[in-house]
């Protein structure tokens, strides 16, 4: 008799919920009738909300080493899960009635759920095995999601490119894992971290693992896929992919680098800094010349990955809390920007360029406040992406650069700041177009001609459809971007827990709090007097 193993199902409950949900949605969404469509949307939302509630309830519960060391479910995992679930919900909202005609709503929603499931497992993985399974689960889902608009050649192209290059990077990651296993004899991140092996195999393995994960977060110089894939995929998919993948990718990158390769940090920190510089330079320079909004956002996401990497560079000081805050802010503002792109695409019936933004910031005849407000949402998100003070983007960037400076990488912060200055060149153009240009059909049409042929013409939205849920999301996400500026500290505290997760289990945030709180005045007074 083989004994029944002790399994902590709660450690993977979010994954279980989404997996079951995905299967149900796949079956329910098979029909092409109206109710099938509505039911698949409703069930997907319900599944995601259930996952959300569960993760929130169990947020501060750490379950380490579940499933024979495969799962480490802690604040870091839960933070990643929450971001993935929220991005998923927003993607569902943005895609509402987006595929009314092709009958692929079941696939879309089921794949979205499996992707969330994979990300969730990825974020909670305590070993390279579960990490790789999670990675493949969400990657394969995303490959198909990108290619789901099969009647649009750009979409197929996007899926295919992502598949080929993604396959390459998965192989590299796997190869790195194998080398690390060879060096330490374990897949478990904590065991690898504890082993005193500092052999050549470990370094080579760490390099390849870092490369493979850097690919997933879209950092340069592994960024080649991003512009084409982001541009070709349906915009809700792009929005989901660019936020959720990046967020869990960064969290897992932090976990792998710190937990497994913490002892080698003197080696990888300069390399991560190098990746950051490459991303900031390539992302910002590439975004400057773009006419196509989604492509601009793709390059901007490369640049943002560069800023976020600064948080990992500063991992040993204040970088990790700043990274967690920045990831949440990044999710809100990027989703907000993409939400407005969806609003725009639905209105004009094709991919959007800068010229299409002209004059849309104003409420005028035929354009109510309901049109102008989402456009203002885009302004807020752009300013936040650029890091202009009253928005959350400023505080997130400030925190990231501060972490880099604290860890002795002041020059990196300087590069980041310069990159931010350059980024104004394209973020402010959004505002210029929205408020200072007259709408001009001829100009818009001329700009649209310059799009890659695949992106024009055959399009999934029929022109002129405007949905309150999409506009509402654009406004709400912009509002979230503003609100986040009021609570940086709450999120920093969460980030503190995440840092404790990385450093060593059991350690918590209290010592950080003690340092931050103003001591009794009587005690600090003499110090100030000196």
């Amino acid at each position: 008799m083989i004994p029944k193993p002790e399994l902590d199902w709660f450690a993977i409950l979010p994954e279980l919920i989404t997996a079951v949900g995905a299967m149900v949605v796949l079956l329910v969404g098979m029909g092409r009738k109206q109710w099938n469509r509505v039911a698949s949307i409703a069930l997907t939302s319900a599944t995601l909300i259930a996952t959300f509630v569960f993760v929130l309830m169990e947020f501060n519960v750490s379950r380490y080493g579940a499933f024979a060391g495969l799962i480490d479910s802690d604040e870091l995992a839960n933070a990643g899960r929450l971001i993935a679930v929220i991005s998923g919900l927003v993607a569902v909202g943005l895609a509402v009635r987006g595929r009314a005609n092709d009958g692929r709503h079941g696939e879309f929603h089921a794949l979205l759920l499996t992707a969330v499931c994979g990300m969730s497992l990825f974020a909670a993985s305590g070993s390279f095995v579960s990490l790789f399974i999670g990675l493949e689960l969400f990657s394969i889902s995303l490959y198909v999601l990108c290619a789901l608009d099969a009647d649009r050649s750009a979409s197929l192209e996007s899926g295919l490119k992502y598949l080929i290059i993604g396959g390459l990077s998965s192989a590299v990651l796997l190869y790195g894992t194998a080398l690390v296993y060879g060096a330490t004899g374990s897949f478990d991140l904590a065991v690898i971290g504890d082993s005193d092996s500092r052999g050549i195999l470990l370094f080579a393995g760490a390099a390849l693992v870092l490369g493979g994960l850097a690919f997933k977060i879209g950092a340069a110089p592994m960024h080649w896929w991003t512009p084409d894939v982001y541009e070709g995929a349906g915009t809700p998919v792009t929005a989901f992919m660019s936020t959720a993948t990046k967020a869990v990718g960064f969290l897992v990158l932090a976990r792998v680098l710190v937990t497994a390769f913490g002892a080698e940090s003197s080696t990888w920190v300069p390399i991560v800094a190098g990746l950051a510089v490459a991303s900031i330079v390539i992302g910002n320079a590439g975004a400057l010349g773009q006419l196509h909004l989604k492509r601009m956002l793709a390059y901007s996401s490369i640049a943002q990955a560069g800023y976020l990497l600064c948080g990992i560079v500063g991992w040993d000081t204040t970088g990790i809390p700043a990274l967690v805050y920045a990831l949440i802010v990044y999710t809100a503002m990027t989703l907000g920007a993409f939400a407005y792109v969806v609003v725009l695409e639905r209105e004009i019936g094709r991919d959007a360029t800068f010229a299409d933004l002209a004059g849309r910031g104003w409420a005028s005849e035929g354009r109510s406040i309901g049109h102008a407000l989402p456009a203002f949402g885009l302004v807020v998100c752009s300013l936040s992406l650029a890091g202009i003070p009253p928005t959350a983007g400023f505080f997130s960037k400030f925190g990231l650069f501060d972490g880099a400076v604290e860890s002795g990488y002041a020059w990196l912060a300087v590069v980041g700041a310069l990159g931010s200055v350059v980024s104004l060149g394209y973020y402010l153009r959004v505002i210029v177009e929205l408020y200072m240009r007259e709408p001009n059909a001829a100009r818009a049409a001329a700009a649209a001609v310059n799009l890659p042929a695949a992106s024009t013409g055959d399009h999934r939205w029929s022109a002129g459809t405007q949905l309150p849920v999409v506009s509402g999301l654009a406004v709400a996400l912009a509002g979230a971007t503003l609100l986040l500026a009021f609570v940086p500290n709450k999120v920093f505290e969460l980030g503190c827990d995440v840092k404790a997760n990385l450093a060593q289990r059991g350690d918590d945030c209290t010592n950080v709090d003690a340092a931050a709180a103003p001591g009794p005045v009587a005690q600090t007074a003499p110090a100030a007097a000196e």
Partner: protein
Amino acid sequence: MTLESWIPIGMFLLVAMMIPTGLIGLGFAFGARNSRPDIGGNRGFAFESGVSTGHAGRQRNPIDFYLTAMLFIIFDIEMVFMIPLGLVIQDLGTYGFIELLVFVGILAVGYAYVWGRGALEWE
């Protein structure tokens, strides 16, 4: 750490690269060659997998064949997993049996999907 210590890694990489290049190279060296596809030989055609190439490209290839074959392989491979499970099902007890049912259930969902989508219909 000296640069020399990286040599094993380099050799490892070299061997790894030799496998695919070797495979391609061997095929290149020993395979039947015909540089003129228009006068016969299979190299010039899209498929070398044993399907008749008699009517080069003019005939419509039955896509259903590939789809069904692919689905067969997927389900086949997954079902192979049931053989070892079946061998020890006595030892696994009720818990193992439920696990088995869950596994079959997941496969059944996939099957239902494939069926419902009409992928098994041969036209």
